């Protein structure tokens, strides 16, 4: 086949017959030039495939063009699921708002609060007189929600909704706003809407769908409660409150403060900004923003925050943060907060929050003291997340926890997330010594690591182990598991499992396959696989000498690993070549290389019910059938078999039962 013929084949690769495939592969194997063309075509296909299509996907069923439907009775179209390709684009974003909070939260520690501190009665009374009938929000004592660490964290969710009832929309804007009241610092973290995370009851999905699922699945507290749950469980930060804002709410907030001044870093042109009209729900308009400081009213700010078609999601998240900061700045300078109660009331249909009105007012009062320059802004973008195409073709971001965790830890302090630590086994370590380093039982580590559980005590350097936070069983939920069944299987109780805060469970919670649970204090019925090493074929002859019944140390060194259920032996560690002696007089029933992990090992039958094993030796000086005296050198220390460093693995068996050698050694 000529190169040209092959390239012609390459241009429709996905339709190849087996014969065509065979011919092409044969040529490709020996032709780097055609390989390069194949790669170029593949890349071309990917580029063409991900070409954005500026057609707005709507969750509503498609609507016939008005011109077509007019004057004719066409029965309502049945809803049709939007094609995946459409769904992944189009739906534009939404935005954020709640300046109120953002700002407000900040610097509460450093800011004097004259209005509320010095004369708390006056403003509250005033508010109380005008507000109760207006707001569904209860008027409670103005206490900002905050955790024990003095941190107040609020989730800002922007939904893709214009007017219209119901709140079950995707949260295309997700910003964590957190203030440390002691340090007086504020952090904003924008979470990409396409981040793939575990959603209770739904498995892995995009984070922006959690709000919808929360309502669909009747989650207690609705969509925002589920979003909160997902954020807490995924990122390990406690969320005190949420604010959901739709487009109109956003516009109203910005207009209420008299517009905002945003320092636009880059010219923004978007010829595809959605401009739905009655006669054409898919209409577009062109928007343009010059670089430099721009004054924006609510509608303009919304455009700036939503525009997506000519930029990336990360860019949009940055713009949204600029808007939040601009709102903060305005809040600090303006005297608008006097109008806040009216504003909040006016927003009743456009904003949803679990903050009480008085909490908001308190936040707003603090806002006036804020220096927007003190706010730290972060966007979860690559490399903190990796773009990936899901099996169903949807483009998502996968979180890179090893990069995200340190960022959150820096911003929010210690994370409360059940994500087991990873420990890389170093030279000389054992499950036992690692457990000691982490203050855990060795069994806990063995149970959390299947390969250790199966061949206990035999570690490889470089192996990575999961380290649970407390003693017990770290369990990955399987299909069909229930809390009751797990509790019974692992000898614990549902209450015990639920009470472990990091599990974030209630007694009634559904378990999600793949979800990790910590079953504190639980235990597994384990069969450690340690079989009595002697059988009928390995028995000292009747006339062999008998041991004294008192053992001496078989080698000098330090205790590398003690006796536990996964390691019915002790490890005595020292340099390679250290002399190993018989712990008692006896008969060598086995001397050889073990394929399972013991390396060069000796088994000595002491004729009095005791058997000892010496493993991982460098060199053995005796053979099967030899008689050894107590204290006689039988070999040299090594690290043969599965060992992380030179040591002697020493077992004592009495009448077929493994004993802790430390109980027998002087």
């Amino acid at each position, binding site marked *: 086949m000529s190169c040209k013929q092959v*390239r*012609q084949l*390459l*241009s*429709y690769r996905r*339709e190849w017959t087996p014969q065509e495939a065979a011919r092409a592969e044969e040529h490709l194997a020996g032709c780097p030039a055609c390989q390069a*063309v194949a790669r*170029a*075509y593949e890349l*071309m*296909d990917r*580029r*063409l*495939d*991900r*070409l*954005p*299509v*500026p*057609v707005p*996907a709507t969750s509503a*069923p*498609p609507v*016939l*063009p*008005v*011109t*077509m439907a*007019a*004057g*004719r009775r*066409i*029965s309502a*179209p*049945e809803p*049709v699921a*939007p*094609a995946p*390709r*459409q769904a992944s684009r189009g739906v534009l974003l939404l935005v954020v708002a709640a300046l109120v909070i953002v700002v407000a939260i900040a610097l509460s520690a450093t800011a004097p609060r004259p209005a509320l501190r010095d004369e708390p009665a006056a403003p509250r009374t005033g508010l109380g007189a005008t507000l109760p009938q207006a707001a569904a929000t209860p008027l409670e004592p103005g206490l900002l929600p905050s955790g024990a660490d003095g941190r107040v964290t609020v989730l800002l969710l922007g939904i893709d909704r214009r007017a219209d009832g119901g709140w079950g929309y995707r949260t295309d804007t997700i910003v964590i706003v957190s203030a440390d009241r002691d340090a007086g610092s504020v952090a904003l973290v924008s979470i990409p809407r396409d981040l793939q995370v575990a959603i209770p009851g739904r498995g892995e999905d995009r984070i922006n769908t959690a709000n919808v699922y929360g309502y669909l699945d009747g989650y207690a507290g609705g969509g925002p409660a589920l979003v909160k749950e997902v954020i807490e469980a995924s990122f390990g930060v406690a969320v005190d409150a949420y604010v959901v804002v739709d487009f109109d709410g956003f516009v109203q907030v910005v207009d209420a403060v008299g517009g905002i001044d945003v320092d636009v870093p*880059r*010219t*923004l*042109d978007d*010829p*595809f900004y959605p401009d739905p009209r009655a006669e*054409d729900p*898919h*209409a*577009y308009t062109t928007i*343009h923003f010059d670089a430099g400081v721009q004054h924006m009213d609510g509608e303009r700010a919304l455009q700036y925050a939503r525009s997506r*078609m*000519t*930029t*990336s999601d*990360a*860019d949009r998240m940055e713009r949204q943060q600029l808007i939040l900061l601009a709102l903060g700045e305005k809040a600090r300078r303006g005297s608008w907060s006097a109008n806040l109660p009216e504003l909040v009331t006016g927003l009743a249909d456009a904003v949803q929050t679990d903050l009480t009105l008085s909490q908001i007012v308190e936040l707003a009062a603090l806002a006036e003291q804020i220096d927007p320059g003190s706010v730290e802004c972060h966007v979860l973008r690559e490399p903190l997340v990796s773009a990936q195409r899901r099996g169903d073709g949807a483009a998502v971001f996968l979180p890179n926890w090893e990069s995200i965790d340190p960022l959150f830890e820096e911003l929010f302090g210690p994370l409360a997330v059940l994500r087991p630590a990873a420990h890389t086994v170093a030279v000389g370590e054992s499950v036992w010594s690692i457990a000691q380093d982490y203050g855990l039982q060795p069994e806990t580590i063995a149970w959390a690591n299947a390969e250790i559980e199966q061949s206990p005590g035999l570690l490889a350097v470089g192996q990575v182990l999961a380290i649970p936070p407390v003693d017990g069983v770290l369990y990955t939920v399987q299909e069909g598991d229930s809390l009751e069944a797990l509790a019974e299987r692992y000898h614990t109780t549902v209450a015990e499992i639920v009470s472990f805060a990091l599990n974030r469970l209630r007694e009634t919670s559904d378990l999600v396959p793949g979800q990790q649970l910590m079953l504190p204090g639980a235990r597994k019925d384990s069969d450690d696989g340690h079989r009595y090493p002697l059988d009928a074929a390995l028995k000292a002859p009747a006339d062999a000498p008998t041991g004294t019944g008192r053992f001496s140390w078989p080698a000098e060194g330090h205790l590398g690993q003690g006796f536990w259920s996964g390691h019915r032996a002790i490890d005595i560690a020292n340099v390679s070549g250290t002399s190993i002696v018989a712990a008692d007089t006896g008969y060598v029933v086995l001397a050889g290389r073990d394929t399972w992990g013991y390396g060069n090992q000796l088994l000595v039958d002491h004729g009095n019910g005791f058997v000892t094993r010496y493993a991982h030796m460098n060199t053995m000086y005796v053979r099967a059938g030899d008689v050894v005296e107590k204290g006689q050198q039988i070999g040299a220390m090594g690290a043969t078999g599965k060992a992380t460093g030179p040591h002697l693995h020493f077992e004592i068996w009495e009448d077929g039962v493994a004993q802790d050698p430390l109980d027998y050694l002087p």
Partner: protein
Amino acid sequence: MDRILALGAGGTDAEAVLVRLYQEYHGDICAYLCRLVGEPPLAEDLAHDTFVKAYRALDRLPEDANYRAWLYRIATNTALDHLRRRRLISWVPLFDNDRHPATHTCFREESLEAIAVQRTLARLAPRYRIPLVLFACQGLSTHEIAAILKISQGAVKTRLFRARERFRRLYAPEEVDG
């Protein structure tokens, strides 16, 4: 609207079929047209015309017809007609730096690539652009494309090959930055 009302023909069945076709293919057809002509508002108009034509022709269509290929054929011809009317022999690139002097400063990351791809498509002659878009963007088979374009399947493959070779030569993402 008058145009539509004047169409006259078509009973409830035709309407029902059209509603279903619209639901199922409007998004695809819009996307297709947008990739062909590079201008979303124009693509929307052309998609609308496509469905009007489809509605008009529906009663002449055999019941077992491949609706998808048929709609794509109408869409293709609608786009070609439009462009011929505008006497555009070579197709207008999507983003002309003279018309949008600022665009190259605001397109970032993946959208840079999209602009470059769309521009490259615009430089391909329709005879190559159409099969490539149908095959690579819309996911149609060469068999379907042959039916849409009323040419042989072998001809589709040849055009695909030439389209790819030209695309490969012309694709220059750095121009968007420049």
